[in-house]
């Protein structure tokens, strides 16, 4: 999924609702959230986004964020935000590669009888 517009609280709420519905409908096991179109993101928006991705993880779906702009990352680092265990990457292609790897690792772990959390 790709976000190419300015983030607003109402928009994030709608996004969460649409995302969870889509994941449930498709039965996806992973998703890449492309943030390359977002040039402004404050710590409150980021916290909201992290909560959404935590919800996605609880549904057993691997979330990956790709394309965070340099300025946004720089701001977030200085804002000392909580990244949690978010998987991030430079762009969409890398995001898909990362997702494939994460899913493959998950299958192997299940095969070895190890519970691997998303």
């Amino acid at each position, binding site marked *: 999924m790709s976000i190419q517009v300015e983030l607003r609280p109402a928009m994030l709420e709608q996004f969460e609702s649409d995302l969870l519905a889509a994941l449930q409908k498709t039965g996806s096991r992973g998703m890449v959230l492309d943030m390359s179109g977002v040039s402004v993101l404050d710590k409150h928006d980021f916290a909201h986004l992290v909560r959404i991705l935590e919800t996605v993880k609880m549904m057993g779906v691997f979330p990956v964020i790709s394309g965070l702009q340099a300025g946004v990352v*720089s*701001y977030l680092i*200085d804002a000392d935000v909580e990244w949690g265990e978010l998987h991030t990457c430079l762009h969409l292609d890398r995001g898909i590669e990362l997702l494939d790897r994460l899913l493959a690792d998950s299958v192997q772990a299940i095969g070895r009888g190890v519970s691997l959390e998303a």
Partner: protein
Amino acid sequence: MEPATLHYIDLGHVSLQLDSSYLALRHKLKRVADMLQFEEHTVSRLVGVCSELCRLPVLRESDKYVGIVLANDGVSLGLVVDFAVDARLPVERLQLYFDEVWIGSKEEPFSGVGVQAYKRCPYVRAKQHMTGNLLHALRDCVSDPSREELMSQLERNNKELAKQRDDLEQTVLVRTRELQDAFELAQSANAAKSHFLANMSHELRTPLNAVIGYSGLLIEELEELEPQECVGELEKILSASRHLLQLIDGILDLSKIEAGSMELVVDRFEVPTFLFELQMTMQPLFEKHANQFELQCEDDLGILFTDSVKLRQCLLNLLSNAAKFAANNRVVLRAFSSMEDGEPWIRFEVIDEGIGIPEAKMQHLFTAFEQLDPSTTRRFGGTGLGLALTQRLVRLLGGYISAESEHGKGSTFSLSIPVMSGAYEPVSMEL
């Protein structure tokens, strides 16, 4: 510490009144920063931290603003974000993102409160790029309403419209009630008029029937009767005719006054002389009922400028009522000068020791089309219009009339008019 050589140009400000104010600030600040050619990286950082601060609870409660100011150090342009709020702000956060942070700068255009954060534009040279067009475009970035501001304005407009709609509905309800009341009043007046006409038709037909009846009788009997035997019937015809004329005159006068087309003929006359002539006119009527008529009038009462005919009509009506409803009693007509609101007036009082008026009837005394007491009217005669007509005539003369009475003991009718009811010269005025 502020560089001493910085010159500032205020580009505008963003109010913090709304919850969504930070979104408007983001939008405008980003546009200004892009126009000043800050790198994308720097724009994200600057706008991010300003957005974050605007969302602090202490700022969201504030009714202040964030100003966006252009700075010029003579070499390069720069951007100052002025958090003009009387609250503690995390200055150290701003210091991570801006070149300099000042606290409560008093330099024009800053207000001396809050925090001002300055960032220099490395690529925009003051002499090369500082043009009128740039300044105009930068100001437009700040003044053009953002989506949030437009939505907020739309919401305010909708609320205002809803309120006006509710007010309008309330106004319509009130007006409908008023119209309903006016309709009921009109219906009531219409019913009263119909009632009056029904009564009056009997009053008008009775003397008219008498005229016709006695005339017919006379024609039949004329050959047999002696001339002196006709006098009785002729007197009855005359009396009925006079009564009918009096009725018709009263109705016509009242209608004329109600229609606003009554003429006033103002003239100048001596009050004592006027009253003396009135006494002479009324004396026979008083003697007829064995009443004593007394005139009490100051010799130096002076001159009145008013319609003497209308005034005479009013006083004759009051005096004839007093004479009619009293027998073997004393009726006094008093006249004296008075002052009202610094102007000279004359007051006339007609005092009788007659039957008086019950208290319950007092409120309808001057009401037209309302019979005081039908049995009294039929016993003593009259049209039932006299007092209503008198009140309206007195008002036309610029005065007022009032009454006091005790049932069984007598009444006092008071009539006051200004000395100068009209112009000095006799003139006919259509009202």
